[in-house]
Every structure is written in structure tokens, then in C-alpha cells.
């Protein structure tokens, strides 16, 4: 299996499972696992005729994702207990938000660290409250700490001493040095309470965030999963009255219009998501599509030159070019191990 075309087609059209040859299943499952989409695939294939072994593997993946969600929601609960006395709005982001809000996007979603958004001027209080409640700094060397505090949109990572789980505290959704400047105050003001003391972004903002995260923040590693989040969110909210216009307005407000539209075009293309106001498919979209599909049946990322171009691009987006050169030089000298398998 050279790339993720077949896998994406199966997510789009689960009935295709019946047409797979027996020897295609192992590479397909390995690919799905490498993209953190095995449990999502399991949900999509629910009800389809499957070989017995495949069914077992998918059941295990679903059960594991559910267990992971319970743990993720517990982390959110413990953060809420630590931060409630501050009276500061705490907004859940990404997978934990989907799970806490009971959205379809949570089905099969594997969740890693806890991500929260708080007002920038509350950062110091939040940091203190978390440290008192048992979180501690993940030890990075001094250079990375400087990098985080000057350039990033979040506190350096914290990990809980007993539970061994990480929390990322954001004050906006993109680094301050990136070109788009989202309106963090508006995100917080429009956020929706869950009743537990925690909040989530308003649905159009969730989608803007997912698009920002996919294109403007990272190097597209794990892109298929982020794009799947977009698909699930858009299908859930796309029927709402005035939704597409509201989404376009918010995207414009947060200076992420082109990113959101590209996200809409890519999810329509790969996952068949019904979209509106997405603009026309263009040549650069095809490059993004190739990068997203660059995973083979052994779970390896392929198309190296393309990948490196995206890695450079992601850092370019995070900081001005002169800084970038210095940062990459320092990083390569210290030969940090790659973050992803």
C-alpha cells in the first residue's frame, strides 16, 4: 500500500470494506494506526461485514479510545478542580473538548495531552494554581524555555507528578510571531459553558481552530486525523441555519480565511464532506493533498523532499525567517530526536 488513498476512500465509503482482498487488511490497519485513526476507522466500519480478526482488532481499538477518553476527561476534571477558585474562564480544546461536549467528532478520537485556553493576563495565576495542585515543568533545557516564553502561544509543557499526564496551557491558538493574528479575546468571549465549570469554543471557532492547527501551526504530521476532526465537526454543524456565513465571518475575524477555506476544500476532496463558501481547488491544494496522503502500508511517512519542505514551512510560519535560520541551526547542532515515528 503505497499511500493513504485506499484508507481515505474507506473512511469516505465504509461499504468498500467488502471489496478488500484479505492481504490488504494488515497494511490498511497499520496505516490507520500510524495516523491515529484506527478507532475512527472502527466506528466507520461498524455494521460492515469484516473478517473475524479484523473485527477483533477494531473492537480493541474502540475500547482503547474510550478508555483514553475517560482518562482525558478526568484530566480536565482535575484541572477544573485546581483552577475553579481563580474564577478564570478555562476553555477545553481539541479532542478533550469534543469528548466533553459529547460531539460525534469524539467517536474513536484518540486523545493525548490536555489542551486548555485561558486569558493571557491569567497565565501567571493559572501556572501557580497548577504547580500547587501537583503539576510540574517537563524539564527542557534553557534554550527551549526561552523559545517557549518568547515565541510561543502557550506555557512550557507541564506534567502531573502523580498521574504522569501533560497539560498545555494556551493563551491564543497560534504563536504570536505567526502572520495570522487570531482574536483570542473573542474566542474566549464567544466560548460555551458545559455546566461542569469548563467551557468549549463556539462551534464555528472550533472549526477555525482545527483549520489553524492543521495548516498554520504544524508540519501536517498527523494531518489526516486533524482533517477528520474538521469533517466530523462540519457534518455536525453544517446543517445549522446561517452556519457557513458565520464560519466565514469568524475565519475572517481571526485572519484565517485562506486556511479555513483550504481545509474545507481538502476535507471535501478527501472525505467527501459537504461544504460551502470554500473557494476553488488550486494547484497548491494538490501539494497539501499529496503530503496528507504520504503514508504507506508499513506506517512509514513517504515522499521525503515534500515532507522536509513542509517542516521548514511550519517553522517559517511560526517565526520570521532570520530567527528561523538561527533556530534550525541550533536545533540541528543538538541533534534532537524526531518527535514522530
Amino acid at each position, binding site marked *: 500500500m503505497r499511500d493513504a488513498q485506499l484508507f481515505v476512500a474507506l473512511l469516505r465509503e465504509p461499504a468498500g470494506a467488502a471489496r478488500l482482498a*484479505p*492481504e490488504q487488511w*494488515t497494511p490498511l490497519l*497499520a496505516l490507520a494506526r500510524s495516523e491515529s485513526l484506527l478507532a475512527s476507522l472502527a466506528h466507520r466500519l461498524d455494521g460492515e461485514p469484516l473478517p473475524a480478526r479484523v473485527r477483533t*482488532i477494531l473492537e480493541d481499538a474502540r475500547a482503547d479510545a474510550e478508555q483514553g477518553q475517560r482518562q482525558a476527561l478526568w484530566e480536565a476534571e482535575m484541572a477544573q478542580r485546581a483552577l475553579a477558585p481563580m474564577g478564570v474562564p478555562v476553555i477545553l480544546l481539541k479532542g478533550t473538548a469534543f469528548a466533553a461536549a459529547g460531539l460525534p467528532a469524539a467517536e474513536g478520537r484518540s486523545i493525548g495531552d490536555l489542551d486548555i485556553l485561558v486569558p493571557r493576563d491569567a497565565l501567571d495565576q493559572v501556572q501557580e494554581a497548577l504547580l500547587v495542585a501537583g503539576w510540574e515543568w517537563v524539564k527542557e533545557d534553557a534554550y527551549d524555555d526561552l523559545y517557549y516564553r518568547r515565541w510561543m502561544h502557550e506555557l512550557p509543557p507541564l506534567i502531573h507528578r502523580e498521574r504522569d499526564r501533560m497539560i498545555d496551557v494556551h493563551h491564543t491558538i497560534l504563536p504570536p510571531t505567526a502572520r495570522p493574528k487570531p482574536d483570542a479575546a473573542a474566542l474566549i468571549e464567544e466560548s460555551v459553558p458545559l455546566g461542569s465549570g469548563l467551557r468549549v469554543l463556539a462551534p464555528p471557532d472550533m472549526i477555525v481552530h482545527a483549520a489553524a492547527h492543521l495548516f498554520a501551526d504544524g508540519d501536517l504530521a498527523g494531518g489526516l486525523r486533524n482533517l477528520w476532526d474538521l469533517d466530523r465537526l462540519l457534518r455536525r454543524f453544517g446543517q445549522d441555519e446561517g452556519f457557513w456565513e458565520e464560519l466565514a465571518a469568524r475565519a475572517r475575524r481571526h485572519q484565517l480565511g485562506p486556511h479555513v477555506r483550504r481545509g474545507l476544500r481538502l476535507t471535501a476532496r478527501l472525505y467527501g464532506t459537504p461544504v460551502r463558501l470554500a473557494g476553488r481547488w488550486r494547484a497548491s491544494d494538490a501539494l497539501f493533498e499529496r503530503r496528507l496522503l504520504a503514508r504507506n502500508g*508499513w506506517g512509514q511517512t513517504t515522499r521525503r523532499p515534500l515532507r522536509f519542505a513542509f517542516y521548514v514551512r511550519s517553522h517559517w510560519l511560526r517565526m520570521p525567517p532570520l530567527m528561523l535560520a538561527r533556530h534550525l541551526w541550533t536545533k540541528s547542532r543538538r541533534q534532537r530526536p*524526531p518527535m514522530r*515515528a
Partner: protein
Amino acid sequence: MRHEFAVQVGPVGFRVGSEWRAPVASLQRLYEGYPPPEGGVADFSVRLEAERPWRRWMKPSVAIRGDYVLPDAAPLALAHGLLAAEMGMNLQMALGQKRYLLLHASAAERDGKCVLMTGASGSGKSTLAAMLGEHGWRFMGDEFALLDPETWLLHPFPRAISLKNRGIHAMEELVGPDRFGPWLKGTPKGTLRHLRPRQDAIARMGEPARPALILFPTYGADTAVRPVGAAEVFVRLTQASTNYVTLGERGFGALSHLVTEVPARAIDYPDGKAAMEAVEALWAELS
């Protein structure tokens, strides 16, 4: 991946891809007689890859990758490729197994019941299980024991047995040369040799057994037997399990049932013969 090997071990199917022929050839010899993955579908994939593209040929360096990866893991020399493959399979089990509670223990079966032996590296649990396997018991596994939270039965995981130092010599006295893998010297784990389990262990890899005795063996002192309290057994087994936490309530239920129903003993032993006598005596008394 240029070269591929696939095998079923107990309830788990593995696929190992390699950029070099040698590790796959070693695996094929060592796992002779094992079935391919059930239904043709592998649960986990391991990849033996060159650390950097040019390290495929120059001072070949084998990075252990796969469905699950340890980011800072040091690569191995190509001469130790077989060990890399075994470590890769262990890693997939340790991080990826979500159905059965994984206990870091060896096991052997007799009359549908089994003894579980758990302890730190050097306790001799692998060698003990291998020896029992040559003395009328069915070998079930040397590294992982799989506890089914639904049935409370233990499932075999009869991989090639990983023997170190004394254990190698002890088994060479009992078993012919054709079941042994190559000598692996200077590995990160010292000197190793793998041993293929007996034919019956392979043929019956799908047959679970009811746990009847838990042992904490320690090599090196005169024979002594002590009871171990249920709370201590519980804590030691959770420490020895890589997936206890991910199994959640099912893991708790399975483990608490195990420690409250099955007797546990710590045994010190000076040599293999003494150990086997102690095991047989305890088995007769308690199982």
C-alpha cells in the same frame, strides 16, 4: 520494506519488516514450525530500519520501529538484528496490547492449570519455565503472560525463549542444538541465546489454562519458601504490567480476582534442580 517475516504467537499475529535479509533469515529459522498470523491479519507490525539512509550499508545500525516506538531507543548492530526483532515485538505488546492484561511473567501448564513466575531480570523465570517445559509441563511463555479479563484464564504467549548466561548452559544440557538460535554476544542485554519451545508448546499455543500458583523466584540462595500477602502480590503484579492502567476497570477486576483466588509464594533457589523440586512440591500442596 524489502524483507518480511510473519508469525502467530498465542493470540497475537506479528509482521516484521526489515531492510536487511539477515534478521528475517534468523527469524525464519528460529520460528520454524510456527503458524503464520491467523486469518492472514497481523495485529502488530515491527520495522527494522536503518537509522540514517547510509547506515544501511556503512556500519549497519538497526533502529527498532513499528506501530509503537520508543523515541529515544538506541539502535542495535546488524549482528544483533534478531534481538532487535524480538525487542520490537516485545515493544508492540507492551504498548499496544489492550485486550489481555499483560503480566511480565513466565508460565507453564499441567492438567489445564498453570503456574505463573514473575520477578526482575535475573530471577531466572525464563529458564525455570523452559526447564519445566522439558519435564512434563507445557511451556506457555517466558516474558509475557496474557490474562483474559472475561474468563480469568491465562493465554500462552510461547515466543522463542530468551536465555542469558547460566540459563543458556542449563538448557544446553537438556536440549539438542537445532532448537537454539545463534549466540548473540555484546548486546545491550549481555550474552543471549534464543531457544525455540517444544513442539507441543507451539501446537497448543491457542489453549489457555487456569492460574493455580503464583511464584516470585529469586536465584542464588539456599532453598526457602515464604508466603506472599495478597496486597503485595497485587502491587508487584501491577508494577510488572505495562498495560494495567490502560485496561481500566477490566484490569482491576482481573487482577483482584487473580490475587484473591490464587496462592502466591516467594522461593529462593540455588540451582535449577532445587527450583523444580520446590515448584513440584508447592504444586502438589496448593494447586
